């Protein structure tokens, strides 16, 4: 999977692209460990075509750390397949989910 990040106003935008499953999860995990993501974060999932519970687990982990640090985390641009995973696991209750990055960064 491809991972990149940039700044937009007060927010850091972490953009993911490709497949987020057990085989790509370690790559995302080490990226998160190496990079400083303190402050407000938006994770842009527009280019993620497939996410399973291994990917969801990492996102939930980020949400937990952000909540503990009292920092903002938003998700943006979930396609229907990705939304479905959040819905059936009820993980949607843990995230603020936006359909556009710019609106999330306002």
């Amino acid at each position, binding site marked *: 999977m491809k991972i990149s990040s940039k700044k937009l106003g007060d927010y850091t935008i972490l953009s993911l692209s490709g497949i987020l499953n057990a085989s790509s999860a370690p790559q995302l995990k080490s990226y998160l460990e190496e990079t400083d993501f303190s402050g407000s974060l938006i994770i842009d999932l527009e280019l993620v075509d497939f996410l399973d519970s291994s990917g969801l687990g990492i996102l939930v982990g980020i949400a937990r750390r952000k909540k503990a640090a009292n920092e903002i985390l938003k998700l943006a641009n979930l396609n229907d397949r990705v*939304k479905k995973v*959040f*819905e*059936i696991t*009820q993980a*949607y*209750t843990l995230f*603020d*989910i*936006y*359909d*556009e990055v*710019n*609106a*999330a960064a*306002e």
Partner: protein
Amino acid sequence: MKTLIIIRENAHSWLRDTFPGQHPLLVRICNKSFLEFLFDFSIIAGAREVRIVSDGDMAEIRDFCHDGGRWGLNISYATIQKSDTITQINNKNRRFYAAERIIVLDNLLFIEFNKNESYTEYLASSHVGMLLSNGQGSVYLDGADQQSILEQCGSSPHISIPELGSLPEYFRLSAEILRQGSRYILPGYSNEDGCYIGRNVVIHKGVEIKKPVIIGNNVQIMPGCVIGPEAVIGSTVIIDRESLVTGSIVMHNTFVGEQLEVKNKIASGNRLMDPATGASLQLVDAHLLSEITSEGTVYEGIVRRLVHVLAALLLFIAQLLPYLFLRPFVGEPVAGGTGHEHKTAQLFNRLSLDRFPQLFRVFSGSLRLIGSQPAVFRYAETEEWPENEMDARIVEQFCTLHSHPFGDIPLLLKALLNRKESKIAAS
């Protein structure tokens, strides 16, 4: 113009208590779900794109609506947090909002409108902000303010939101929709005002139908009944002979027994509710889901046994040769016969040869030839329409109440002829 429907999980809990097992927005009023009435409003307002957002579980809503194609709508879904305000929801759905006028239906069950009036211009030209509110839910206009049409032309069309927080209010609204049927799009076929009748409805001789009425799909009304005025009969309902249903709602999957008077009540399953007093009565005998008690006298029992054994013997003789001939060509029989099997297997099931081995249990007295479950043939198999266990139980309830040892013979023939259509699994 687009519509955004906000569903708040904790709202409308009275509906969850009154009609358990259903999402409040999928509860039917006048044989149509609340949600579908909201869709109708959206369509009349010219908004074909609908987004449903919720802070709770939307699985049931999704299974019901899918992408909205059934209504000619384009429906999408999104999730929100419990504490989100309309502004936050606007932000979260920015892409959906685009630069359009959005009708936000926040926490609403029902909007009163009139399909013969025009809403598009009125809603497009009104200012952003609250249009209507009843303390619980609201209609809010959001998105772009249309600068060009600031002056409203003509009078505003009828639109209001009723108080809807209890069973009496539900009952009152149902009667009102029925009375003003021409304002709404009601389900069923209607050849005259105030009379809407669904598919597969059998109305027997000597039944009096008094307008206004709505009758759902798969309904049987037995001789001598009086239905209406102001009766809403749901789908999959049997109303037994000489009963009266007036000023009442019979919810789907309900069996109304013989010579009952249902006046100003709501009948749902085996409950009879009085909206005026709030009293709810559990019926043990005449309604669905009751214990099946009528086994008749000892004499009747012996006659029935005899009739069943004789009929089973005749069936045994008729089926023996076809069974021996066809059995080797059929694999393990599939219960119920789903129609996906090989041609021989289809014929095998069509001739009810799959039931042949069970005939021995009739001879030994451990199984009835026909009856409610368990039996070689189920009463439910005499009808073509039962599609699930609930439907089947209504038919069985009815047949058991009316069963008579000799009456089982025509029912058996009906079941045998019906085998191709039957969708219910055997015992």
